[in-house]
């Protein structure tokens, strides 16, 4: 049953690419249209004020053009964001501090490091929890508690404490990312490692299998579908953690820093461009995990 649930998205994606393009395009068009209308409405106030102050009368077409071409709009129009994105991605050498590719790389490297640490910690803790009753009772409450602390409160503390210890750059951000990503892995792995039913473990006992034989040959392979489902959540969480960690640090690098400096200077186009890069990054990372998931589970006969 779980296999079917976990693999359902895979099947759906295949169908998407073959026949369901029209509904997707329709939804996209509706979003863009709503976005344009919202941009006009939200940016119009400022234009009207300006016009009143200058004592000129604005015609409707004039007003519309102006709301869509402001320098610092309240809500930039889609084409402005697209231009900002293009400028940031293709208009700069990738090593430039104004390149979104460079900032994305800074964020991505911390995300991947944090994801690796978080996944490692989550898996190890899960193994401990499944094998030891006392760990089950002692670790789980702390793990849950760790996730109830708002990350926005924790992140600055970690950054400040670590930088006072002389540790800056990738590591503090990776730790925040790991903080958010270990939890889904822990929960998924605990569930996964416990999936083998009584019959499966009885079979193992009937062969007098040792604990480690049971783990490597039965529990670990059985847990993989759950692990992959968790990894998809964890990698997106790691990205969020990294971006949050880039906000308070006074950092000048990374998508989080771009978001923050954009809001300091009212550069809404910059904010939205950075947001879009972050979204694209998240989607790409999740898609990569999904591909690895599908390949692995298909090879293992767990996906059908």
């Amino acid at each position, binding site marked *: 049953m779980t296999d079917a649930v976990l693999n359902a998205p895979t099947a759906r994606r295949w169908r998407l690419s073959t026949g369901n393009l029209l509904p997707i395009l329709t939804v996209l068009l509706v979003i863009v249209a709503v976005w344009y209308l919202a941009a006009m409405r939200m940016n119009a106030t400022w234009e009207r004020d300006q016009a009143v102050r200058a004592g000129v009368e604005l015609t409707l077409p004039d007003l519309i053009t102006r709301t869509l071409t402001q320098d610092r709009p309240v809500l930039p129009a889609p084409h402005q964001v697209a231009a900002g994105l293009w400028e940031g991605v293709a208009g700069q050498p990738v090593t430039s501090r104004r390149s979104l590719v460079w900032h994305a790389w800074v964020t991505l490297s911390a995300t991947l490091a944090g994801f690796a640490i978080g996944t490692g910690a989550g898996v190890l803790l899960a193994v401990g929890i499944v094998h030891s009753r006392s760990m089950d009772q002692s670790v789980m409450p702390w793990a849950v508690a760790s996730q109830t602390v708002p990350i926005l409160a924790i992140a600055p503390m970690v950054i400040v404490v670590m930088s006072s210890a002389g540790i800056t750059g990738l590591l503090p951000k990776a730790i925040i990312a790991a903080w958010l990503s270990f939890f889904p892995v822990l929960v998924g792995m605990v569930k996964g490692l416990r999936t083998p039913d009584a*019959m499966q473990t*009885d*079979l*193992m006992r*009937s062969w*007098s299998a040792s604990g480690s034989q049971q783990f490597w*040959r039965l529990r670990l*392979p059985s847990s993989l579908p759950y692990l992959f489902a968790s990894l998809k959540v964890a990698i997106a969480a790691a990205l969020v953690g990294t971006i949050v960690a880039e906000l308070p640090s006074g950092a000048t690098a990374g998508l989080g820093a771009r978001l923050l400096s954009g809001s300091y200077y009212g550069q809404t186009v910059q904010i939205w461009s950075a947001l879009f890069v972050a979204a694209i990054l998240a989607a790409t990372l999740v898609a990569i995990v999904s591909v690895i998931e599908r390949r692995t589970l298909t090879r*293992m*006969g767990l996906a059908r």
Partner: protein
Amino acid sequence: MQTIEARGVSLTFQTADGPVHALKDVDLTVAPGEFVSFIGPSGCGKTTFLRSIAALETPTGGTLRVNGMEPDAARRARAYGYVFQAPGLYPWRTISGNISLPLEIMGFSKADRAERIARVMDLVELSGFGGKFPWQLSGGMQQRASIARALAFDADILLMDEPFGALDEIVRDRLNEALLALWRKTGKTIGFVTHSIPEAVYLSTKIVVMSPRPGRITRVIDSTLPPDRPLDIRDTPEFIALAHEVREGLREGHSYD
């Protein structure tokens, strides 16, 4: 030496609703090479008794010996192979890989494993399917693979808990015939739990009739059928008389309702 020897075996489960007497004063002796069926209504302790022999449960009273040893020691000496109602094959292993699993756990060499896998696959008539994955096989074939897995390490006892219960009648007949042939060829001692009177009579040299609350043996019937049993033996008067006796035994256990 007897293969299975139970003297006054009792097993009481302590549950939230109070004690459940799954087995009470069970006496049974099984000689080497016998085919013993356990039959009785649900909850009469058939599974519990089989699991006790396999050291998957520990009796709370009496003595139980398997090949003259404590069940635990017998298990470590690889005295038995266990077959459950569901095949329980690993989906990520091929049929050969699944049969190989207990052999790997027990530390057989690679060459030895290959030889054994080939031999037991031939025994259950699955030769040529070694490279297939479980989902590529029918339910009956999967269950044959799980029997092969239980045979691979040469245990001389085969314990089977309703192994064909989930299969349809036609497949079941085929498998019963094959199991009987396998038993004659290998000379193993087989303990077989079933709900079906014809199945029990067709297969067994000894039929153990059980009854619930508390779980106990009400009758032990020694079969008079010859070891060679074509399927149509089920229409002979001898067979019908035995089936009648089993039915009588089952009714006795239910005299109160």
